């Protein structure tokens, strides 16, 4: 090992905005404060709850619950349609604040969860607890949202700490204190456990993290097989996973449509998919990116969902190829006879559009026409919004 190299104790800050969508809606409309609020698409009575306020949670409303059921439980709640773009905007503003303290930021998709690795930034920004406090103050003043902040030597420890102080507060777990901190806590607070594993642990009366930490790897191997390593380390607060800054290729974005009535009408589904493709294509061209994989998520009436993808090695941002890929992915995903509640289109494996023109082949006349049509459509969408003008789909559907 080279001289001068040493491993530092890590300082991982976790910020967690409880009920993120509700918090953002309340910033936009302060009249919603203190009221029971449910965020769910209102286009259909069989929509599911996207988020809810603490008041609605107290009444028994949960994420993923049917809106009808939620309204029966909490009849006085106000219902708002989710505004994903708005939540993503708030996420970006939050990240901008965090970027002044560290480049290593990991965040979820419009869910108000952030991990920031501030290891080694002490000479520049001071103590990690001070950074946590300053970020919270800055975000509270600037965005009007009040995140929980916790500090630990790993993502796992910081995550568990955040579960102790919901909906507001802070928790600092001092380095070296991880095992003592975790020991008395309920096993339910340990992240990364499947429902089956949890049931198994409770079967063995391992109801605290400390009880789990009391077992050796070998003892855990018998009931949990390969997972013994994770369980052994997690129960002691050992988590070496890095705060991963997603590379451009790992980023993704998507659009979702909830049907007014659950459906298994192919034409309706393809029509909706074409609309999602149009929005995705537009977004790719605005970002000057291409996608090399398109995923279609189908959520069925019975709560199950199926995800399938279709890839294109060269990548594309054009609606025509995107639509072919989307239909391929749809055909792969549509395997059940159950009706479909919602359909989501996700673009990932993103990369920048190459500015370099191809050396030999001249683009065909068709290709030129397509490019012109898309450019015109982008202009119209920019000015009048999506859904005003779309490319005809039925002919396209026939060709695939």
């Amino acid at each position, binding site marked *: 090992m080279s001289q001068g190299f040493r491993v530092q104790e890590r300082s991982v800050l976790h910020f967690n905005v409880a009920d993120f969508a509700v918090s953002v809606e309340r910033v936009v409309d302060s009249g919603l404060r203190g009221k029971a609020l449910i965020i769910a698409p209102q286009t259909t009575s069989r929509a599911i709850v996207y988020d809810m306020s603490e008041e609605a949670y107290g009444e028994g409303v949960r994420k993923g619950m049917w809106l009808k059921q939620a309204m029966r439980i909490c009849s006085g709640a106000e219902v708002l349609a989710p505004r994903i773009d708005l939540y993503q905007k708030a996420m970006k503003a939050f990240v901008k604040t965090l970027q002044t303290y560290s480049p290593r930021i990991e965040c979820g998709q419009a869910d108000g969860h952030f991990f920031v690795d501030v290891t080694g930034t002490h000479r520049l920004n001071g103590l990690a607890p*001070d950074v946590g406090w300053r970020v919270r103050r800055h975000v509270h003043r600037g965005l009007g949202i009040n995140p929980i902040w916790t500090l630990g030597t790993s993502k796992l420890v910081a995550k568990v700490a955040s579960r102790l102080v919901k909906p507001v507060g802070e928790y600092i777990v001092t380095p070296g204190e991880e095992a003592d901190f975790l020991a008395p806590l309920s096993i339910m607070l340990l992240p990364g456990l499947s429902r089956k594993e949890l049931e198994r642990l409770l079967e063995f009366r391992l109801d605290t993290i400390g009880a789990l930490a009391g077992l050796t790897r070998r003892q855990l191997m018998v009931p949990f097989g390969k997972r013994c390593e994770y369980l052994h380390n997690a129960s002691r607060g050992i988590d070496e996973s890095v705060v991963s800054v997603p590379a451009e290729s790992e980023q993704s974005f998507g659009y979702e449509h909830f049907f007014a009535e659950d459906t298994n009408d192919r034409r309706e589904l393809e029509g909706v998919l074409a609309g999602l493709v149009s929005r995705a294509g537009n977004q790719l061209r605005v970002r000057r990116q291409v996608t090399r994989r398109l995923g279609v998520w189908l959520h069925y009436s019975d709560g199950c969902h199926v995800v399938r993808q279709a890839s294109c090695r060269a990548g594309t941002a054009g609606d025509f190829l995107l639509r072919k890929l989307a239909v391929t992915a749809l055909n792969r995903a549509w395997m059940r006879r159950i009706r479909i509640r919602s359909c989501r289109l996700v673009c990932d494996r993103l990369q920048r559009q190459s500015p370099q023109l191809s050396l030999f082949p001249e683009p065909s006349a068709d290709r030129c026409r397509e490019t012109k049509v898309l450019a015109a459509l982008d202009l119209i969408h920019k000015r009048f919004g999506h859904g005003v003008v779309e490319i005809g789909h039925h002919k396209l559907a026939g060709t695939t």
Partner: protein
Amino acid sequence: MVDRDRSNCPGRVDLVFDPVSAGTASVCPVYIGTCGYSYTEWVDSGFYPEGTRTTGMLGLYGRCFSVVELNYTWYQMARAELLSRMVEKAPPHMLFAAKLTRTMTHERADNWREQLQLYRQGIAPLGDRLVAVQIQLPPGFERSIANRNYLAALLDGLEGLPVAVEFRHVSWAIDSVFAELARRKVTLVAVDEPSLPGLFPALDVVTNPALFYVRFHGRNTNGWRSGNMQKKFNYDYSDEELQLWREKYILPMAARAGRGFVFFNNHVGAQAPRNGARLAAILAQQSKRAGK
């Protein structure tokens, strides 16, 4: 309150004062320490040996000092189980001052009375090692009727605990405030900070004969309002400045108090422990001269 044996108390200097009339000389033990001890930067700066981890820092700190001001209790509510483990692992001579949580000073919560009770429970494991609860009030906390009432209620809530109050706003530097603190036997914190308009001045007022309390924040005028603690507390005191403080403030206060605690907050680049050790040496020289 325990008074540790001097030989086992690094960073402690006993200041001896001649009796005013015939009688025995009075002694004021002065403990020097720093605001916080857990700084990775102090490993980089050489105060802690290479490779020191957080768990080993308090033990090493205890080789140089016998008191520390806990600043983590400002960021989050004091937690009994954590402090209990810390006291268990701390060197036996180590004393602690604990900052009051920000939800009762800088970001006053609506339920601050409940917070106060939680705080009292949280610091309970410090027991007789607690030298003072330090209430640091924000620069915007002016001497208004509402703030006076709040402070009075806060001090009532801390009844029975040794308390030291640090004002940052100049409006509190008046005799009636000192008289009320003296009536309550609450220590007024003497501060050294940049001479900027509106800041509380350095004073040698002793409001509690049992203890005096000094905080050296550094005199970084440019960094003070930067919002970055690495700039704010980046200052290296010269021997002359420390010497002057000894003459002008520490000795007069020590002559009127049972014991004293001096903390350095200029933690950047481990200047705080360096300056603390230097002040201890300066005071020790003075003490020797007084003893001769």
